[in-house]
C-alpha cells in the first residue's frame, strides 16, 4: 500500500489502463499541457505520446460527440470535462447519442466512452463552476454514474470504467483532489454496483456520496462521543446502485439519513429514500431525512456558500432528528 493523493490515483489509473490497452485514447481541454489544470494527466503525454492524448479546442459538443464516434469504431474514449458544468454544452451528445445508441440499434452498437468530469462546490467558484449534476444523468437510461470519495475508490473504479463497454460518467470532486489515502501497489479494480461501508455502526444508517462521505465520517466521530453509533455507506456508483447494502443496513438500524451535495429536489436522495420505502418500510423507526444543498444556485460569497453546502453540524442534527434526540 502507498499513500497517494486522489488526483494521483486518477492519473495512475489512466496510465495503467493505457499500458494495458493500446486502444485507450484521452482527450480534453488542456490535458496534454502541464498535466492538465488539476494535474490528473501529468506524465501521460511524455509516456504515451501525442497519438494517445490530445488537447482539444474549447468544444465540448465535439469532445463528447467524437467520444461516441470513437467508441462506436473501437477506440476506448476517455474524455475530460474540465468542470462538469461544461457538459451542458454537450447534452445532445451525452443523452441523445451516447446513452441511447446501443438500445436504438438493438444492441448492435458498443460505446466504451468514459466521461471524466470534475464537479462540486466548496472553493468559491460560483454558480456555473460548482454544480453537482449527477442526478441529470442517473435519470437517463443507458449511462453509468460513478462518484468516488477516496483515492482507493477513485483508482479502482476508474480502471473498471475504462474496461466497461458502456458510457460511464465519472464524477471527481474538486475538493477531493488533494485528499490522500492508501492505494494498493498491485493491479486492482472495484466492481460497479458495490457500495462500501465506510464505517459500521448500529444506530443509524447515513448514506453519503463523494465529498459528503468525508463529512459524514467526521459527523460520525462526533456522534460517537455522544453515544450514537452511525453506519456510513458510500454507494460509490449511483448507476448501478447497490440497493442490497443500503437495505441491509437500514433493516439493522431502522433509521436513515441521506447526504448529498446536489440540490434536494429530484436528487439521488429522493430515489434512495423511495427504494428504502419500498423495500424496508416495516423496519423504519423514523421518517428518512435528507441533507442537501439549498434549492438555489451555488452562491459565490463564501458566507453563503458555506451555508448551502451540507455541513457536519447539519448531518449531526439530521441524525439526532431521526433518533428523536434533542
Amino acid at each position, binding site marked *: 500500500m502507498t499513500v497517494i493523493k486522489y488526483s494521483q490515483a486518477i492519473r495512475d489509473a489512466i496510465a495503467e489502463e493505457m499500458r494495458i490497452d493500446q486502444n485507450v485514447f484521452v482527450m480534453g*481541454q*488542456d490535458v496534454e*499541457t*502541464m498535466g492538465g*489544470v488539476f494535474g490528473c494527466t501529468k506524465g501521460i503525454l511524455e509516456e504515451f505520446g501525442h497519438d494517445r492524448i490530445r*488537447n*482539444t*479546442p*474549447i*468544444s*465540448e*459538443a*465535439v469532445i463528447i460527440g467524437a467520444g461516441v464516434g470513437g467508441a462506436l469504431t473501437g477506440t476506448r474514449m476517455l474524455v475530460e470535462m*474540465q468542470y462538469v*458544468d*461544461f457538459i451542458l*454544452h454537450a447534452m445532445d451528445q451525452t443523452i441523445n447519442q451516447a446513452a441511447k445508441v446501443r438500445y436504438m440499434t438493438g444492441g448492435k452498437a458498443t460505446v466504451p466512452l468514459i466521461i471524466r468530469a470534475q464537479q462540486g462546490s466548496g*472553493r*468559491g*467558484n*460560483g*454558480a*456555473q*463552476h460548482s454544480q453537482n449534476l449527477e442526478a441529470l444523468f442517473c435519470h437517463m437510461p443507458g449511462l453509468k454514474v460513478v462518484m468516488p470519495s477516496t483515492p482507493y475508490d477513485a483508482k479502482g473504479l476508474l480502471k473498471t470504467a475504462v474496461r466497461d463497454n458502456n458510457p460511464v460518467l465519472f464524477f471527481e470532486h474538486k475538493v477531493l483532489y488533494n485528499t490522500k489515502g492508501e492505494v494498493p501497489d498491485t493491479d486492482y479494480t472495484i466492481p460497479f454496483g458495490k457500495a462500501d461501508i465506510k464505517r459500521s455502526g448500529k444506530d443509524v444508517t447515513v448514506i453519503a456520496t463523494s465529498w459528503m462521505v468525508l463529512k459524514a465520517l467526521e459527523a460520525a466521530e462526533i456522534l460517537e462521543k455522544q453515544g450514537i453509533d452511525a453506519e456510513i455507506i458510500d454507494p460509490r456508483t449511483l448507476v448501478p446502485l447497490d440497493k442490497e447494502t443500503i437495505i441491509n443496513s437500514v433493516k439493522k438500524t431502522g433509521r436513515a439519513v441521506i447526504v448529498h451535495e446536489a440540490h434536494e429536489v429530484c436528487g439521488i436522495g429522493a430515489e434512495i429514500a423511495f427504494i428504502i420505502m419500498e423495500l424496508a418500510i416495516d423496519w423504519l423507526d423514523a421518517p428518512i431525512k435528507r441533507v442537501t444543498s*439549498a*434549492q*438555489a*444556485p451555488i*452562491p*459565490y*460569497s*463564501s*458566507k*453563503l456558500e458555506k*451555508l*448551502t453546502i451540507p455541513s457536519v453540524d447539519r448531518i449531526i442534527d439530521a441524525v439526532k432528528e431521526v433518533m428523536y434526540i434533542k
Partner: protein
Amino acid sequence: MADNNSLLRIYEQMLRIRLFEQKAQELYVQGLVTGSMHIYTGQEAIAATAGELLRETDTITSTHRGHGHCIAKGGKTDKMMAELLGRKTGYCGGKGGSMHMADFTRGNLGANGMVGGGLAISVGAGITNAIIKKNDSVTVCFFGEGATNEGVFHESLNLAAIWKLPVIFLCENNLYQVFTSVAESMPVKDVSIRAISYGIPGITCDGNDVLELYDVLDSAIERARNGQGPTLIEAKTYRWEGHYTGDGYARGGYRSIEEIDLWKAKDPIARMAKYIIESAIADNELLEKIEAGLKDEIEKAVHFAMESPWPDDEDLYKDVFYEKEEV
C-alpha cells in the same frame, strides 16, 4: 479619429482597470477573493476604447475575464471590489463574484463563467434593439479567441448576420486558452477570417493600440447603428498574468519568458502615455495627477468593500425566481 478628450478618458480607464486588477490580485493572494479570478492586465486598450465609443444605452456582454469590460462600461470600482469580496453591497449582492459581474444600470449584461456564454445573449440584445424597440442602440459582445471554437459562435454569428443585428463581435485574441495555444486549437491564424462564412466584415487589428482600435470600432459601431448588421473584430493582444490567479505555469511553462517580455514591451498604457505626451495632449504632471486620483479611488474601493456587510443568511434563498422589484 479620436479627439484629445476621448484619448485622455481612454487612458484614464485603462489605468483604472490596471490598478483595479493589481489590487484584486493582492486581495486574492490574501485569501479574500475565492474561486477562479481571471486578470485582464495587458488587454486594457480593448475594453477602454470600446467603452469610450459606446453610449450609456448601449449594451455589452462580457466574459470570465470581465473586470475590464465592467469598468469600461462605467462600472463603479467600489461595487466591483465588494462583489469580489462576496459582500452584500457588491454588484450582485455577493452572489456572483468575479465571473458574474453585471451592471444592468449601465448596460453590462454580465460576465460569464461559460466560454462563449455571451455570444448568443448579445444576439438577443440585438433582437430587442433592432426588431422590437427599433432604436439605434448596439451591443458589443466581448469574447476570447477560444470561444470561437464553440458551436454557439457559429450559431450566433450566423443568426446575427442573416437578421442584420446591431452586434459588434469583439474577439480579444490573447493567443492562449488556459494552457492551450491558438496554434494548437485553430487551423487559421486570424479569427477574423471566420467572418467570411457569415458574409460580414472581419477585421484584425492591434489590440494594444488605442488609435487603431478606435477607428476600427468606430466604423463597426456606426455600421451597426445604421442597420447594416454585425462585424467581427479580432483584436490581437496578450494577457500578462496567468490564465487564472494562481496559475503557476504562465511564466516559462506553456509561455516563454521571452514571449511575455515581447508583449510587455507593447504595453498599451505606456504606449498611450507616450503618445499623449508627444502629441502634447497632456503633460506628465496631468498624467501623474490622474494616476494619484485613481490610486486613491481604488484604496477607497477596497475600504468600502472591507467595511461592507456580508449577505444575510436569507439571501441564499432569494432571487431564484422573480418575485417583486427590489427597492
